[in-house]
């Protein structure tokens, strides 16, 4: 039985506190006026030839992308240089304003995605009646404990930030944009909020009952498997609900930041990201608890299987990422390819860095069968995978909201600290509530003796 140590409590509360301070500091600093932006741009322009090129690529971004006034800019941009300069300054001002909101949103989504991915993995274990994994169930249940607060945070930030992240929430933009008008039966704020509430309610209801039955199964008679059977049924039902709502969630909460752009496999792509992040965190927390001597019943073969999942889903993620990229790159249709043009021109390092961290590194490190049993190898690969998938979310949100005004600085890191503190606190609190071995699970003997 795990007890929440004071050290961990203080550490996570301190993380949240520092994160909150850092974020509010950068938030209050981001409210700069148009005049200040103009001075800043003039200064940047006077820094010599190197920047002139950058301004050119700005024009591309403005045309294809960005916040509020992009479509007006597109039309007016050849007429009058002064108008363009002023438009450009306003555009940059919006991007600078958007950055703290986006940073907070990316971090909130990243941790929510870990909890949701772990919950989906857990449901799959129940629905498939897996015999190897029941010793890990308490870890999965603890991680998914974060789902409800985490998902509410994501939805709340989305609604609070409004047009700072989702330009289709700005009525002025919609009024001048026929494409968004045509989508407004789906993309409107109230329906967005209702959908979000339905998603969160469904996921949390499953999580609540599954945890309840899992605990009840522990305390039930040895011959009474009714709680397990109930869990099996609701898990199968949840998986159906999940795969639809997860897909819609990814359109709503991520893809709609670029309301003109769409990709039909986006839901799967986000699913792969959350699945591998969730499994990685399951492995990391299991290794931590095992190193504390609290999970002696977890053996090398369990770790080997988790590492295999990390390896396999990393490849699955790459497969989907590439499937999306190849078709859009090959077809080269302007309204589609602008998505990757922006990312390759303005986000070169995070865009290609993410590929190295999410594919090449885990692929090479976890390929050897023996290495999948070595804890520090799993930890090393796991940390790189998690950073890589944070960058993945970063690359999905930031180009639409802050354009080339991105950086990984105070707002991003403090938002990460804020949500990682909350995540650690809630997950380890949930771990301390019940014994780490679900002893009533009918497969628990098989799971404890699992080896190959």
């Amino acid at each position, binding site marked *: 039985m795990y007890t929440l140590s004071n050290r961990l409590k203080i550490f996570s509360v301190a993380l949240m506190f520092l994160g909150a301070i850092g974020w509010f500091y950068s938030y209050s600093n981001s409210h700069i006026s148009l005049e200040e932006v103009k001075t800043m741009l003039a200064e940047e322009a006077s820094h010599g030839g190197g920047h002139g090129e950058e301004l050119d690529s700005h024009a591309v971004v403005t045309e294809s992308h960005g916040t509020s006034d992009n479509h007006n800019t597109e039309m007016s941009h050849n007429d009058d240089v002064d108008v363009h300069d002023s438009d450009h300054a306003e555009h940059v001002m919006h991007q600078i304003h958007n950055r703290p909101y986006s940073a907070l949103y990316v971090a909130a989504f990243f941790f929510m995605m870990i909890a949701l991915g772990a919950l989906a993995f857990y449901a799959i274990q129940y629905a498939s009646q897996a015999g190897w994994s029941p010793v890990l169930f308490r870890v999965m249940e603890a991680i998914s404990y974060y789902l409800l607060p985490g998902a509410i945070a994501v939805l709340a930030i989305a609604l609070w930030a409004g047009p700072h992240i989702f330009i289709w929430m700005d009525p002025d933009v919609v009024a001048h944009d026929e494409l968004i008008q045509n989508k407004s039966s789906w993309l409107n704020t109230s329906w967005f909020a209702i959908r979000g509430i339905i998603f969160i309610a469904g996921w949390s209801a499953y999580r609540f009952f599954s945890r309840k039955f899992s605990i009840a199964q522990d305390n039930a008679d040895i011959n009474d498997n009714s709680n397990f059977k109930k869990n099996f049924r609701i898990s199968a039902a949840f998986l159906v609900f999940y795969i639809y709502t997860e897909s819609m969630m990814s359109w709503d909460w991520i893809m709609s930041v670029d309301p003109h752009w769409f990709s039909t496999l986006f839901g799967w792509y986000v699913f792969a990201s959350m699945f591998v992040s969730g499994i990685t965190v399951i492995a990391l927390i299991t290794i931590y608890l095992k190193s504390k001597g609290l999970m002696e019943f977890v053996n090398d073969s369990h770790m080997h299987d988790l590492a295999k999942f990390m390896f396999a889903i990393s490849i699955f993620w790459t497969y989907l990422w*590439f499937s999306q*990229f*190849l078709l859009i*790159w*090959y*077809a*080269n249709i302007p309204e589609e390819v602008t998505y990757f043009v922006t990312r390759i021109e303005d986000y070169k390092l995070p865009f290609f860095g993410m590929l190295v961290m999410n594919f090449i590194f885990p692929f090479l490190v976890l*390929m*050897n*069968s023996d290495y999948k049993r070595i804890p520090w190898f799993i930890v090393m690969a796991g940390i790189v995978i998690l950073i890589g998938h944070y960058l993945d979310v970063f690359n999905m949100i930031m180009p639409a909201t802050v354009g080339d005004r991105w950086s990984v600085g105070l707002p991003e890191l403090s938002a990460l600290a804020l949500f990682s503190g909350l995540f650690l606190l809630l997950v380890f609190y949930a771990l301390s509530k019940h014994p780490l071995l679900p002893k009533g699970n009918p497969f628990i003997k098989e799971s404890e003796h699992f*080896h*190959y």
Partner: protein
Amino acid sequence: MESSKVIHAIYTDDDELMAAVKKVKAAKHHIEEVYTPFPVHGLDKAMGLAPTRIAIAAFLYGCVGITVAVVMMNFIMIDDWPQNIGGKPSFSYLENMPSFVPIMFEMTVFFAAHLMVITFYLRSRMWPFKKAENPDPRTTDDHFLMEIPVHGNAKDLKTLLSDTGAVEINIVDKEEEH
């Protein structure tokens, strides 16, 4: 041709076989071979066989495959006969690389899979028209056979094996091929 005596102990259950293998190994006897109708998990470890190196071979074959794909596509699509397909840059392998990724992937898998199977057959000394080495056809159905060479200790071995639950113990002359 040299002729030597071996013991064939036959079992009807894989768990019993595993226990027997462990006992025989503990008594420091060499197990020549075990014939089973299906793969028994952990049997290789219990028999003390060296771990397989097929994974290393597979990795190297995969490297060969991806190299062949790159060289081949570079020759076909860039050097020999550049074609304008969908307006893609056709004079540089690197710039056109995304369209070659599926081919690079497929060739990696193709080389790794096929060469791995061929390696496995060669390493196991299997080729067409080879006479089966299996001493007892029942091991292709529901029996398990353990083969132990006899070096004048037939009696000890027999008692040891009958203790482990062997249903049949035969001493036979084995014709060695080499």
